[in-house]
């Protein structure tokens, strides 16, 4: 954890776009706020992608606790493809993102096979995926066999200045100084909202998650819907995982995602299974993740371990908040979440 923080603090390109050098004099306070918000978006992007993926999976009634392992597999794939990809830099980055999606999807497909075909309990299967693929498992084995930690990741996601808008005061650094994946994640939030609440397929998806028996009677294939959305969710989680080596920490280390997959799981509950609320939650946690670095960069003396603990601590606090009181009824939770569906025999 400490090593991770140091690497982060030293990491050049990726973080520097979000962490401009402290400026002089009077503007410091407003600048600090902008920096905090901008880095909240930067560090929140992988959480957002993974949580959107998990939301999609859970909307079909499948709980995938293998999110952390799936993100790590995506991170390995992205890192590997960035080193071994061919073509100009921008193309290699696209290849890396595609590789991360494919491998993330495959990891989630294993979960889908286990719970849908082999009828393993969803919680147990998800844990098994994270143990198999996690920081001490396959992702570490692959990274070591493929010698990913030999040098820095060559081709990364760089901030794209959209039409020179990044020079705008306030809005520039906040909204127009991000990399392509962050912009894509905003499009994705809108697209998923439309898909869930305005499209026929989205309606079918929600039906499967709420009442698989009814959906089945309507002629919707429960198994096919669940397979498709579990795999799609895994692809997004893989993308979120790849954000770490490609944008945040440009040198591989085992367990590079640092438990963010679990935070993303909590975010889905926090966001009541709705894309737009998940976006808010992801940036909130992005802020907690980056606060330490922002303060350190400004020589504020705070215990590194305390700052490092903030996202985990806040996850518990937030989870307590949303699981108590008025939210107790689990607003938005798919009714059939975590349960298997077997058509009754005649």
């Amino acid at each position, binding site marked *: *954890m*400490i090593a991770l923080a140091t690497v982060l603090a030293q990491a050049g390109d990726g973080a520097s776009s979000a962490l401009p050098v402290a400026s002089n004099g009077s503007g410091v306070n407003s600048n600090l706020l902008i920096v905090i918000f901008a880095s909240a978006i930067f560090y929140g992007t992988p959480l957002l992608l993974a949580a959107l993926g998990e939301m999609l999976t859970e909307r079909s009634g499948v709980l995938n*606790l293998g999110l952390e392992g799936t993100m790590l597999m995506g991170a390995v794939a992205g890192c590997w493809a960035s080193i071994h990809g061919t073509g100009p830099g921008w193309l290699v980055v696209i290849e890396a993102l595609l590789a991360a999606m494919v491998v993330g999807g495959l990891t989630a497909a*294993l979960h889908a*096979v*286990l719970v*849908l*075909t*082999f*009828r*393993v309990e969803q*919680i*147990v*299967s998800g*844990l*098994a*995926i*994270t*143990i*198999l*693929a*996690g*920081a*001490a*498992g*396959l*992702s*570490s*084995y*692959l*990274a*070591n*066999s493929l010698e990913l930690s030999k040098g820095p990741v060559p081709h990364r996601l760089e901030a794209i200045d959209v039409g020179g808008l990044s020079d705008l005061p306030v809005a520039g650094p906040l909204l127009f100084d991000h990399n392509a994946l962050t912009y894509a994640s905003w499009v994705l939030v809108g697209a998923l909202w439309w898909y869930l609440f305005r499209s026929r397929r989205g309606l079918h998806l929600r039906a499967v998650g709420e009442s698989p028996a009814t959906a089945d009677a309507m002629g919707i*294939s*429960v*198994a*096919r819907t669940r397979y498709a959305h579990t795999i799609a969710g895994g692809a997004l989680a893989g993308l979120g995982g790849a954000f770490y080596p490609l944008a945040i920490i440009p040198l591989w280390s*085992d367990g590079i995602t640092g*438990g963010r997959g*679990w935070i993303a799981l*909590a975010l889905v*509950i926090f966001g009541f299974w709705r894309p737009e609320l998940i976006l808010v939650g992801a940036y909130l946690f992005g802020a907690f993740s980056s606060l330490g670095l922002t303060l350190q960069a400004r020589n504020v003396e705070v*215990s*590194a*371990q*305390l700052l*490092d*603990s903030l996202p*985990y*601590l806040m*996850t*518990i606090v937030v*989870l*307590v908040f949303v*699981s*108590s009181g008025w939210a*107790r009824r689990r607003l938005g939770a798919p009714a059939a979440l975590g349960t298997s*569906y*077997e*058509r009754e025999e005649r």
Partner: protein
Amino acid sequence: MGLRLERRVDRPRWLTVAVPLASVAVALFVGGVVIALSGNDAVDTYARILERGFTSRGAFTATLTAATPLLFTGLAAAAAFRMGVFNIGGEGQLIVGAIGASGAAIALGDSASGPVLIVAMVVAGAAAGAAWAGIAAVLRAYLGTNEIITTLMLNYLAINLATYLVFGSTSAWRELTGTGLMFPQGKKIPDAARWPGIDFGNFTVGLGFFLGTAIAIGLFVLFRATRYGFSVRVIGDEPRAARYAGMRTRRTILSLLALSGAVAGIGGASDVGGTRYLLDPKALGQAGYGYAGIVVAALARLNPLAVVGVSILMGGLANAGRALQGPDFPAGLVGTLQGLLLVCTLAGELFARYRVRRTAPTPATPGAAA
């Protein structure tokens, strides 16, 4: 033509043996493919794991040492999972157990005698682990907060706490003299607080392993032969029936999670007293005892007595992994093999629970999950 699953009414005895064995065989085969794909000789790798884990000189002693923390975290997971409470926090509970036990030993210092120190370490470790699990237990029992995520977050907080005590502060846990001034490190516990082992000639068994085995027997009896164990099983299998029967669900969740945390915490005490003799946050953070414990519990099918045997097998794997680590035995291979064993065993369960039947050519179940 399709395949159809038919639930077995009774489970033939030979299947309960054959299915796990076949699952292990499949896991080893898939693991062999993974090893071969990374350019190494699978058969040779397995032979070396067997040798360094079990058969070579001194290997079994080291295997038992490696198995001890897995025994505790495996029992902790098995106890909680038994009731459908998913305590994923064995990792963190073991770490705070190590903090508590090393703190107790350092506080008592050289003044106390060996047995007093060891008992104090066990009690402090158990109390710390129970308290850590208690946080998640209270949140789950009174506020309905998902214990999977809270216990997991508490793992990260525990390792940060241990790191803070040794690397981020001048606490009692940190060595502040000698080389400790140059390189931050944990303070050694008094020599009298080191846990003894019993020499069996060819191998040595540490006190921690005996303690873990005793706890395993205790848990087995608790679940099999007591009223408490019965209510745990009913709450796990059928929560509504338990409530109608007047069982105290909330209180049972609290006590069982605390018990589970206490067992993992004693594992931390055993790690300090029997292996490292100081609080070593880096090693604890990398070891991943908690997650391996879940594998152990699942492979043992949550049976405390089986946990003892499975922990020895997993300990052998971990021990061999440590001994063999190098270019042709990359880090992560042990975890991969553990994960494959788990995945294949879970999938194999299908064949013990269901009979796979061919259906007639007429598509009786179109698009059914098969």
